[in-house]
């Protein structure tokens, strides 16, 4: 009789298995899984006083730096990024206008995308805010995901009266930027 016990146990298991059941559920729905987080990240910022555009009495008219950004070309971003929005906010209280340029470059330093905008002069040294938005969607996403470097150039325009900035010039130019990244995560095949 003891030999029957394993069989009996198995039958017990089968009994529980068959009397209990899982109804009205469809696990294949997991194939429709779509997770859409939206991430916002601070990007480049600077704050330069007017007197820093003057070195030993000579005016510096172009400020430029490259920023290496590897996150755009990260595999996760490349595979899942649906839309990206960039917001640039420039607050100028220097009595000089600027031309701003943001170049998106790939590994070979080839330009993928270019953003240009103008920043007004502030004759009364009041803070003037310029806002620019840039959206990457559809095919343009590829321009972003192939980008590994940003080059930021602010070119100061000549003054209308021919004056130059010196160590006592007042005002500043502040730059803030952020990116909003909309991710579409679908269930793996």
């Amino acid at each position, binding site marked *: 009789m003891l030999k029957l016990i394993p069989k009996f146990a198995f039958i017990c298991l089968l009994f529980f298995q068959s009397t209990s059941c899982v109804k009205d559920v*469809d696990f294949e729905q997991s194939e429709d899984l779509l997770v859409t987080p939206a991430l916002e990240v601070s990007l480049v910022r600077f704050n330069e006083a007017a007197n820093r555009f003057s070195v030993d009495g000579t005016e*510096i008219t172009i400020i430029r730096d490259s920023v290496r950004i590897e996150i755009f070309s990260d595999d996760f971003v490349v595979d899942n990024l649906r839309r990206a929005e960039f917001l640039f906010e420039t607050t100028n209280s220097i009595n000089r206008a600027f031309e701003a340029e943001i170049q998106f470059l790939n590994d070979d330093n080839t330009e993928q995308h270019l953003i240009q905008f103008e920043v007004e002069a502030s004759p009364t040294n009041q803070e003037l805010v310029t806002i620019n938005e840039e959206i990457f969607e559809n095919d343009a996403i590829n321009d972003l995901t192939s980008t590994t470097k940003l080059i930021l150039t602010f070119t100061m325009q000549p003054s209308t009266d021919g004056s130059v900035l010196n160590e006592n010039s007042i005002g500043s130019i502040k730059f803030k930027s952020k990116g909003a990244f909309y991710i579409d995560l679908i269930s793996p095949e």
Partner: protein
Amino acid sequence: MKRISLILLLFTCITYSQNKQVLYGFNEIPQSLLINPGASITNDWYMGIPLFSHIHANFGASGVSVYDVFADDGRDFNQKLRTAINGMIDTDFFTVNQQLELFSGGFALGSSYEKKEYISFGMYQELDVFIYFPKDYAILALEGNQNNINRVFDLSDLNVSGEVISALHLGYNKKVNEKLTYGVRGKLYSSILNFNSTKNKGRFITRNGTDNFYEHIFDLDLALRTSGLKSLLDDDNSEIGNDVSTFAKRLLFSGNVGLGLDLGFTYKLSDQLTVDASLQDIGFILHSKDIKNYELNGSLVFDGINPIFPETGDEQTADDYWEQVSGNFENLFDVKETTTKYTTWRPVKLNSAIRYSFGKELSEECDCTSEDSGYLNSIGAQLFAVNRPRQPQLALTAFYYRRLFEQFRLKATYTIDTFSNKNIGLGMSAHLGNLNIYATVDNLLEFQNLAKTQSVSLQFGFNLIFDKNE
């Protein structure tokens, strides 16, 4: 066939909490001694059928059922998933508990007419997994930070633990007098596998910044400790079979061992009123072999990259600056690996009951009640609690016990716990000659559709029992 039975067994493991409310106090079943070493014992000696004497499986998910998410009702799956996630809180949890008795036995000591002491022994394997719902991580993954500016994402929401152990045990039970019986059980644990990440701290916040739109605050203090896992992950074989044989060896000789104690008593307040209580698994395991721990520590406030305009005469070069920014992030997310020994405490379980027995059997010969036949019915209430990382998990049970024939006993339970307020359980113990067969299940109301249930517990087993009056 082997594979199918393995899958079936696994499925029963997965589909069926640590609470054995039906088995507790069901003293005709020898395995009730494992829950309360101070139970009052009715047999002279017993032997569990090896591997089949106690099979227990329990599954629980507070706050959500499979049906909530996977119901075939035409509603959008992603909507159901979001509703489920938003509906859960960070103390909701998922738990799986499974036990398999490898062997067990017990015998009474003392003179043949008055045996007041009882020795029991055995060995079982146990799997216990306890995972809190990582709410803030889920929200961050689901929504991102855009609509959660200023929200503190609490990283302590990650709280998971799991273990596979074996326990070799020896119990002693003594009936002091007609009123009091007590018992103790010593346990030697061997840890087959352990992982735990229960003391995480830290936060992630995105808030409005001054120099840029946002300040991102990272404050990470996370750790995961594992033992018994490294050798399985490092070995070259991908054969499950090899890992199973490694497990089998570790049942006795894992090197990560611990000690435990169970305590219990039964006290008769009167002829009909009894109280009993037990504490199980007051014990620890020392993990010193095959350890791999991971730690993530660091804090950083990031508000963007400040490019260096060399033209404006800053001392620092752009390259230096880059080293610094990427270095900060690398340090922040640098996972340190250690092999530091650690100790885990077993989840302590409390069981207690008060029972009232009534209704003696009428003797057919004299139409009177027999003095020593005992009562046929009992009703009562039970309290169960198990210690968990954040807060104890509790269950309150009302029960009715009935002896139908000398050979057949039933127990029905109604339990209120974290999972359900209408959990009906049923257990039976039958004696066919010396063979004892028992089975208990709970959540019967949900049995027709397990998808809707949040927990199921199941035990069954076979013993050979030899009674005093034989």
